[in-house]
């Protein structure tokens, strides 16, 4: 009996792949998009566009909300400043007016 390891080396000698193997692999590496049906291709593109538009709308909405908040804060600050100014003018221009409470009447 020949040495087992020698037999194994012979039994497991390398085998060449069948003819055209490289071409078949190369064919599979070409863009797969063309192999898909038209609806799958357009569906993928449409889904990509929808996702992009969705992200754009959300981004724009966020921008609009931030702008509104900024304007609101500005308006509130302006109003507060105006009110403070008016209050100051009232204090300096007019005497303190006290409204007398009628006797015997309860508020």
């Amino acid at each position, binding site marked *: 009996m020949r040495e087992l390891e020698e037999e194994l080396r012979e039994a*497991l000698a*390398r085998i*060449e792949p069948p003819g055209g193997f490289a071409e078949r692999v190369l064919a599979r590496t070409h863009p797969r998009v063309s192999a898909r049906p038209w609806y799958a291709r357009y569906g993928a593109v449409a889904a990509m566009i929808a996702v992009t538009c969705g992200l754009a709308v959300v981004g724009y909405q966020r921008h609009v909300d931030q702008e509104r908040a900024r304007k609101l804060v500005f308006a509130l600050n302006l109003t507060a400043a105006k009110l403070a100014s008016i209050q100051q003018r009232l204090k300096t221009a007019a005497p303190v007016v006290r409204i007398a409470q009628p006797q015997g009447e309860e508020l």
Partner: protein
Amino acid sequence: MVFSVAYNYLRNGALAEEIAQDVFLDLFRNLGSVESGAHLVWWLRRVTVNRCIDRGRKRAFRTEVALEKVAEPSFEDAEQDPMVRESLRKLIAALPERQRAIVILRYQEDLDPAEIAGVLDVPVNTVKSRLHRALGVLREKLERKQRQEARA
């Protein structure tokens, strides 16, 4: 190398080609991760063997070629007889998945146990023990036949 490992593992030309194609497509997608020629060879062996083991498990190839059903090889003219080699291939195909992978990497790819351990991501001692066990099974099977022939 890739087709050969797959073919010797699965003993099925169509499946071996399918696996080999998948491996090269994987390589095409992961070309950027290949660092050197040695790394490429290691990567190809690793991916091929893992795919073969997965496919072998899914298709339950072991049940297709049961060890006991394999025809015993004749050793009278072992130097020339291609049937001996074919019988040995069938015996290898009947080994458990990991043992089969180790035997193929050892005797087809001529890797030492440390290199096999690197490909399969297992300890070297595990490789050695599995290889020892696999050779034991193969040797026992062959010697049994030799004894039968001597008696006859």
